[in-house]
């Protein structure tokens, strides 16, 4: 089963526009939205939810204050500044007293305080971090998620969305197309590990170029075959050329360039992939898809690794 992820480094370069278009051109693929912190693909893929489940993807420490002797060990060992002193009312005790308090937004669930506590007053408690959905669209099944407000652990939620997509892909003998998130940290790493192919959508700006260079180092580090798309390439032709030069120097191919096209935001506003319309951007994306799609349908091997 083949998996391809679309990422960008810099945000707002057009990942979701490209992903939605590919989903429609491919017709039968499992699509996964792994930008769980700011998901947008569901806005341009008409879908209805078939299955939904809550995902318990985190654990945070909680203190049973009636067992606490106020020794201060938990605060001492916590490296995330999650434990502090706070005036609290405790069951079984008269009035309010100062006791340790664990800020669940800071707690990383590392268990240091759990093991350090001499009276076993602290336990790790599982926490639901979001919901995962499997939806039906007219171009195949679609896995997506909703991260609960201020919940920690988006990397794990991404892994859960991918697991759901992979399971479906295996059953249906299909490939997986992933719409990723900006950045290069844990969420993006969780999005691309195990993929045969990464597509980086960039834009011709100094920021886009800088962020692309960092993403290429990331995919080289994980040895995943990578190709680049320059979106809105004609906004700055010089920087586009600089990006092409930089790519060819590092042995990464630019698989296509998409022109600036006012039809793109219009299609988004209407809630459709751009490929529903005859427009310069849609034409460019179709050409790119024709070049890329064989990677997803090949029976084995895939592209050579780029480094």
């Amino acid at each position: 089963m083949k998996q391809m992820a679309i990422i960008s480094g810099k945000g707002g370069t057009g990942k979701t526009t490209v992903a939605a278009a590919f989903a429609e051109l491919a017709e039968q693929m499992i699509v996964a939205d792994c930008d769980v912190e700011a998901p947008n693909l569901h806005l341009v893929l008409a879908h209805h939810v078939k299955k939904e489940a809550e995902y318990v993807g985190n654990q945070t420490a909680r203190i049973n204050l009636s067992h606490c002797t106020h020794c201060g060990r938990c605060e001492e060992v916590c490296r995330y500044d999650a434990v502090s002193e706070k005036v609290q009312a405790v069951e079984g005790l008269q009035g309010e007293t100062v006791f340790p308090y664990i800020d669940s937004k800071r707690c990383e669930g590392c268990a240091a305080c759990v093991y350090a506590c001499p009276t076993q007053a602290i336990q790790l408690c599982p926490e639901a971090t979001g919901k995962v959905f499997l939806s039906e669209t007219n171009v195949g099944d679609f896995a997506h998620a909703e991260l609960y407000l201020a919940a920690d652990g988006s990397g794990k939620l991404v892994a859960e969305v991918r697991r759901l997509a992979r399971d479906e892909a295996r059953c249906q003998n299909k490939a997986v197309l992933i719409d990723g998130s900006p950045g290069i940290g844990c969420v993006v790493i969780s999005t691309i590990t195990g993929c045969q192919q990464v597509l980086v959508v960039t834009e011709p700006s100094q920021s886009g170029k800088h962020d692309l260079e960092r993403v290429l180092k990331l995919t080289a580090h994980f040895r995943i075959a990578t190709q680049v798309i320059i979106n809105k390439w004609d906004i700055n032709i010089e920087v586009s050329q600089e990006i092409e030069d930089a790519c060819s120097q590092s042995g990464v191919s630019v698989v296509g360039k998409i022109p600036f096209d006012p039809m793109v935001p219009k299609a988004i506003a209407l809630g459709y992939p751009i490929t529903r319309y005859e427009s310069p951007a849609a034409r460019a994306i179709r050409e790119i898809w024709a070049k890329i799609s064989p990677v997803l349908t090949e029976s084995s091997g895939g592209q050579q690794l780029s480094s």
Partner: protein
Amino acid sequence: MRLAVLSGKGGTGKTTVAVNLALSWAPYRKTTYVDYDVEEPNGFIFLRPQIRDTSTVFLPYPEINKACTFCGKCSEACQYHALAVVGGKVLVFPELCHGCGTCGIVCPVGAVDEVERPLGKIDEGERDGLLCLQGVLKEGESLAGPVIRGLHRREKEHSSSLEEIIVADCPPGSSCSVIHSAEGSDLAILVTEPTLFGLHDLKIAVGLMREMGLDFGVIQNKDDQGTLIQEYCAQEGITLLGSIPFDLEIAKIYSRGQSLMQDRKWNDLFKTLGERIVTEVKQRKTEGEII
């Protein structure tokens, strides 16, 4: 005062707003720009500060010494599967380690020493009196948190009064990285764009601010004269702090990695916006004190 610039959706113009506001304030008050988007920091591309200090951010990880009896307690306690005891040997996987120190706490014989590995860096520089800080996560590393925490500590060394300004340019999304970059701010500036995607992610950012109990206002970037964002803000009772027009000229200046302040028209726009924001924060502070 501390101002956090964030957005939910990427590419809406956080850095454009943060950089140009910082430049608009710098001639009049002590201002610090801090780039918390440690995965993809871009502010320095536009500010081009003279770097005067670079420090490495390290993360501790365990090294097992000869006292080890291979009891397996460390590997059992580690929540990140960074340790494994296999046939009279302890395997350590530094890239999985979060540096929490739990293995050292549970080891009954003191066999866990801590060593450090570089995770990223913090740069400090200056441009025309504007103090500039940025955190940079090393490519291939997954943990942005320790770099963000290190940057927070550094920012606090330059801690500000209400008259001084700290501008925190936050990462996109709505994760712990955003929370840790934004917390402690007097006002969060949510930068959005008038698209379906922009509005959807603005709603997530608004929810996050309310959950955190942080005061916030909205700046609409790439304003196309539509009413999408205005209507939402009016409905929700959210202050619209200002708008930046959709303009291909701005896109071109941006694409070259230049600040907008060199241009008279945009200079005026950011100065007005900057004054509006400072007034807003002071007003909310006084109101808060009265209440």
